């Protein structure tokens, strides 16, 4: 029996933590306001979203063709291309490159794909020191945690938490109010790592098939550092991140940065097309692109769920999800939390492992409204919930109850009889399972049913009652 807490237990714990709820409330309000402000300047936001949707849907539809074109152009440019079917394969490929170069230190720019495959643990197990260079990721790594949000990894931590962390783990006294000071500490430590690193690893925000180019967006500069200073650069990318042409980048970049951090553009947008050329003075001598499948090609085969692959990993859905706002990212126990996590995780790691995440939904639809490329997240969530339900078997209690309800509702006389019986008997708390009564009162049947009221009204008005 697993001693790992269940999703239910984790959410419970999260809900009870006033501190966590306060952190997330503050952060989510901040991010939502920033996004609202950032999209206000777009006259035709809906038109932009439709274009983003079209570019992504088209790319997903033409995925094999675009990936082959990307590979061919990357190779022409001098970028080594590797294909990884599973996370394990990707880890093997990456550590293979590291070992070949006798690497002792790897510095990482931000990559959710690398979190998905647990790359850091794999490299560390081989004795290769792996340091996160994004400030938020570095903080989270120092505390032996995983990110709680795909864009702002340390969103669950307060200034005080971080000051304390720096003191405990780095032995450096920090004033919690001096954020600039703490960032300066991070800068100094990580600068040394950039200098020493044998390998830099990054993700890819978009890869352009037509030109064989990797596009990265960031504010800090750690992405540029990781992909420029070390002699070897390895980029890992999910198969769905490819886009056809350079000009497709403009609308997608506009949507991504506004949705993710409320910015018109990030400090740096970096387009990498080749390793250091003979006459150039800096840049990696070797660039590798690892194309990661890890279940995505199976999602591609599923007509109803293929849309999942349009995701540009902006985080807007989780920022607007009332459930995520309350319980935070760690409660999900998955690489990707929030609505996109509910859709991706059961598909790439199995319904058995992550099916319970589908319960974390109030079916409010905010995620679909927020998605910059119009992914119908609510529909995808409902589809998966449906599949999960159908896989339960006709004899399950829940299915039994639904069948009973459906049976009764198709037989009006039986329904009305039952209603009368219900009204006569008194409903007590003990009739309901604890799961209900813990936070709800038992329902109280009205004195008259809607039909009876309606019938009486028609009678009053002298109208024929048509209550079939």
């Amino acid at each position, binding site marked *: 029996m697993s001693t790992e807490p269940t999703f239910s237990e984790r959410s419970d714990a999260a809900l009870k933590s006033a501190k966590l709820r306060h952190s997330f409330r503050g952060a989510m309000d901040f*991010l939502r306001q920033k996004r609202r402000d950032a999209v206000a300047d777009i006259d*035709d936001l809906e*038109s932009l979203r*439709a274009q983003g949707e*079209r570019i992504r*849907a088209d790319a997903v*539809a033409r*995925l*094999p063709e675009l990936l082959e074109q990307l590979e061919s152009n990357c190779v022409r440019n001098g970028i080594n291309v590797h294909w990884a*079917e599973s996370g394990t*394969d990707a880890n093997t490929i990456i550590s293979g490159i590291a070992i070949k170069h006798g690497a002792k230190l790897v510095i990482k720019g931000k990559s959710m794909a690398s979190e998905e495959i647990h790359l850091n643990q794999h490299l560390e197990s081989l004795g290769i020191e792996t340091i996160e260079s994004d*400030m938020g990721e570095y*903080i989270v790594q120092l505390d032996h945690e995983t990110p709680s949000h795909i864009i702002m*990894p*340390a*969103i669950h931590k307060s*200034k005080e938490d971080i000051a304390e962390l720096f003191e405990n783990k780095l032995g450096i006294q920090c004033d919690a109010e001096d*954020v*600039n000071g703490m*960032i*300066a500490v991070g*800068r100094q430590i*990580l600068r040394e790592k950039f200098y020493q690193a044998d390998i830099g690893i990054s993700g890819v925000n978009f890869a352009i098939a037509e*030109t064989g180019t990797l596009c990265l967006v960031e504010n*800090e*500069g*750690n992405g*540029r*550092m990781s992909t*420029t*200073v070390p002699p070897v650069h390895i980029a890992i990318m999910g*198969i769905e991140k490819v886009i056809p042409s*350079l*000009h497709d*980048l*403009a609308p997608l*970049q*506009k949507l991504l940065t506004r949705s993710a*951090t409320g910015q018109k*553009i990030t*400090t*740096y*947008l*970096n*387009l990498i*097309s*080749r*390793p*250091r050329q003979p*006459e*150039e*003075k800096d*840049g990696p001598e070797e660039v590798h692109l690892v194309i990661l*499948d890890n279940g995505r*090609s199976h999602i*591609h*085969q599923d*007509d109803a769920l293929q*849309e999942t692959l349009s995701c540009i990993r902006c985080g807007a859905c989780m920022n607007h999800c009332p459930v995520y706002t309350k319980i935070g990212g760690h409660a999900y126990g998955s690489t990707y939390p929030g609505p996109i996590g509910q859709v991706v995780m059961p598909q790439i790691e199995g319904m058995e492992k992550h099916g319970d995440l589908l319960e974390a939904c109030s079916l409010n639809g905010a995620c679909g409204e927020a998605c910059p490329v*119009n992914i119908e997240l609510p529909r995808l969530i409902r589809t998966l919930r449906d599949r999960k339900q159908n896989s339960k078997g006709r004899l399950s209690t829940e299915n039994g109850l639904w069948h009973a309800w459906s049976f009764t509702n198709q037989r009006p006389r039986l329904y009305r009889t039952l209603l009368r019986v219900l009204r006569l008997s008194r409903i007590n708390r003990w009739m309901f399972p604890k799961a209900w009564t813990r936070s709800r009162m038992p329902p109280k049947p009205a004195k008259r049913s809607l039909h009876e009221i309606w019938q009486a009204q028609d009678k009053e008005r002298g109208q024929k009652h048509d209550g079939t």
Partner: protein
Amino acid sequence: MTARERILKRLNTRQAQQRTTQLETYQPRKPEHQNKAELIKRFVSELELHQASVIQISQSQRKETLAKLAKEKALERWLLGYGEDFHASIANILSDFSNSVHVEHFDREIESLKDTLFKHIDVAITQVAAGIAETGTLVLTPSASEPRTLSLIPPIHIAIIQTKQLVPTLNDALKLVEKKYQSTLPTNVLFVSGPSKTADIQQTLAYGAHGPKELIVIIEDEGPSNS
């Protein structure tokens, strides 16, 4: 079958599914800042919003502007690219400054310059390929004569841009790049929109995370000096 073949095979099992989305051709609203003066105005205001410093001068004022900066910020150790007229010109200007000003040229591979680059440079100065008014963005295409790390590692980055290099939007900049390079892009194309920053600590903005702490943009007008 290799992993590649297996993956592509799975991806090819469906006919290209075009989801029928209303194809809306996105027509960006014509930005108001179309003429040169408006482009400059927008460019400056966006850059300042991002906490970059902006100095507008006529080309003839370059020397005194750099002298002023060198003095105000105690900039002694300068790093430049190598091989173009621009570099010779700047080196010339700087050589006239006080004896404490030292000029280094990025004329050899980073491996033999790394220590200097990381620890002994106060400021680096570069040209740009273009500037985007809509977002206050510099477009850089690093090359053999102006390496990528010039605009990344030193704590202060000075960029010199001519007003004629300004374009209205990112779309326009990408079109320029596409036109010039077709499908063979340079090794690296960089879009820089301010000094390095982060809000990872409780959403509180701080500058100088890993890239330059300061970005200084000198806008030079080729024509008569603008007011």
